[in-house]
């Protein structure tokens, strides 16, 4: 059965099956290859912990805002159960983990969205963590890097989750005001309310190859139009052609790209150094 490693399984000596080409891969090699299939290049989804390992200077990531916990304000059907199940299974409070980290020694403020937690959906907690990551960057003059992986706003928090679109956008506004660069990394998938808020107004947007990026569910938008959707509709490649992305960058190049960008775009923030 197709199976993508969960955190901690990578060292078990198991085999895993590629979600792209279905070939069987050695788990250890797969991990060394940053969870990218070396046959077909499929970039498998990462948990936030895997993302941290693949990206930042070793041991540099410090989680913050971990004290925030979700409230079922609307008493929405099944929300409390689903949420609790995710919390217990994944040992994290919600879909986004924020913190600070380093790239080649440069401090960055970051937030990482984890699709395994309720589809990475953005409710009050996720919105707050993202906004704090942006504000922290703005206040402490650190570049901000946010990894997106989300189906969109969290329906179960109703209008409160729609408001997170505005709130996170307000966070971007703070970075703009003080000249702090904000880089968004779109990973599979980056959709709907997340795409239509802070994510799309990053200074630089980088996507992983072939990841899904879209405003509406593909079904909705294909229905809604007389215009035929191209075959690669809502993939990173389509979105790049549409002028919405700066670059599509393979995972093995991502750390280098991000380091270079925060080094150059953030140079003016690091007084007394030359970048």
């Amino acid at each position, binding site marked *: 059965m197709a199976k993508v490693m969960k955190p901690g399984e990578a060292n078990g000596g198991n085999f895993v099956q590629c979600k792209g080409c279905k070939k069987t891969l050695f788990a250890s090699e797969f991990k060394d290859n940053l969870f990218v299939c070396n046959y077909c290049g499929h970039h498998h989804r990462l948990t936030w912990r895997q993302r941290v390992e693949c990206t930042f200077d070793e041991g540099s990531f410090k989680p913050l805002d*971990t004290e925030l916990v979700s409230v079922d304000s609307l008493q929405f059907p099944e929300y409390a159960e689903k949420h609790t199940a995710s919390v217990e299974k994944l040992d994290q409070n919600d879909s986004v983990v924020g913190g600070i980290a380093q790239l080649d020694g440069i401090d960055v403020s970051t937030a990482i969205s984890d699709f395994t937690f309720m589809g990475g959906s953005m409710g009050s907690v996720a919105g707050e963590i993202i906004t704090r990551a942006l504000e922290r960057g703005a206040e402490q003059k650190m570049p901000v890097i946010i990894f997106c992986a989300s189906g969109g706003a969290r329906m179960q928090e109703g*209008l*409160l989750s*729609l408001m997170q679109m505005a709130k996170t956008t307000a966070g971007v506004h703070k970075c703009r005001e003080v000249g702090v660069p904000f880089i968004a990394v779109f990973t599979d998938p980056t959709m709907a*309310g997340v795409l239509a*808020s802070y*994510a*799309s107004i990053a200074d630089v947007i980088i996507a992983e190859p072939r990841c899904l990026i879209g405003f509406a569910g593909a079904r909705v938008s294909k229905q809604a139009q007389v215009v035929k959707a191209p075959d690669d509709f809502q993939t990173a490649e389509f979105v790049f052609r*549409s*002028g919405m992305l700066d670059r599509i960058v393979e995972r093995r190049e991502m750390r280098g790209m991000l380091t270079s960008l925060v080094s150059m775009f953030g140079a003016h923030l690091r007084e007394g150094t030359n970048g």
Partner: protein
Amino acid sequence: MANSWKEWERPLLDLEDGVLKLKHLAARELDPAKKAALEKRIEDFEERIRSFIEVKYSRLGPWEEVLLARAEPRPYTLDYINQILPDFRELDGDRRFGADHAIVAGPARFDGQPVMVVGHQKGRDIKERAYRNFAMAKPEGYRKAIRMFEMAERFRMPVITFVDTPAADPGVESESRGISEAIAASMLSMFELTVPVVSIIIGEGGSGGAIGIAIGNKVLMMEHAVYSVIPPEGCAAILWRDPGKKAQAAAALKLTSASALEFNLVDEVIKEPFGGAHRNAVEAGESIQAAISKYMGELQKMSPSELKEQRYQRFRALGIFETE
């Protein structure tokens, strides 16, 4: 469960139709006795209408609020503009790709003072509905809005936005021209404003398409408007794999003006005329005018930087969570 406002109000609409016909008859009746009898019947009918409205409107559930918010005869943005914003000069174009008639925009006067107006515009007949794309704006619409916000900033004009859209246009073309970026950039440009902004949800506040132009210092909501992160039909389809359970979804989503006020997501609910804004558009317009007047008055006492900061703090504070 009714599927449309018309279906839900059918008995009431029939009564109102009856009154109209009776009035027509009475007007042409020459025999005073018969005329008096007709007028008595009219009075009876009107009393029945009143009590019917009273009963029906006192028991409105969330789904009925959705139907009302979507009702075709509800006043739309241009109706309010024509009533309370004289000298409106519609401007158009995103300077990028196209003209988008799902959003109307331009300068006008409010209480004698120049303001910038931006609002979704629905169509009343089939032809206008197509022309307005059912008030589902494409990227061009939001980019036109941004252009207007920027002019409002340069020319120190307060901004008034009217929100009334089922959603932003979700089509392939919209995606390929960056509808997500357009919505987000529109919100961002509203956060940058140092002039007063009042936003009013007048009908459907549909998700990202709505909030894209709803970053006000004050956000008001008509009594029978709805404001939601997802249409109830879509929510039901996801949650129960049954779009028919839209009434349950509407209830779960807490999309009414009362809920929005309870969660402090809007600053005031504007009471609608007896039987809804569609029964008395002029009175609805007057209520909106009074509300805008009040809040503009408050906001104009604030400095440009205070206005920006207050708007930031207003939205920054939204969200409910606990701390472990």
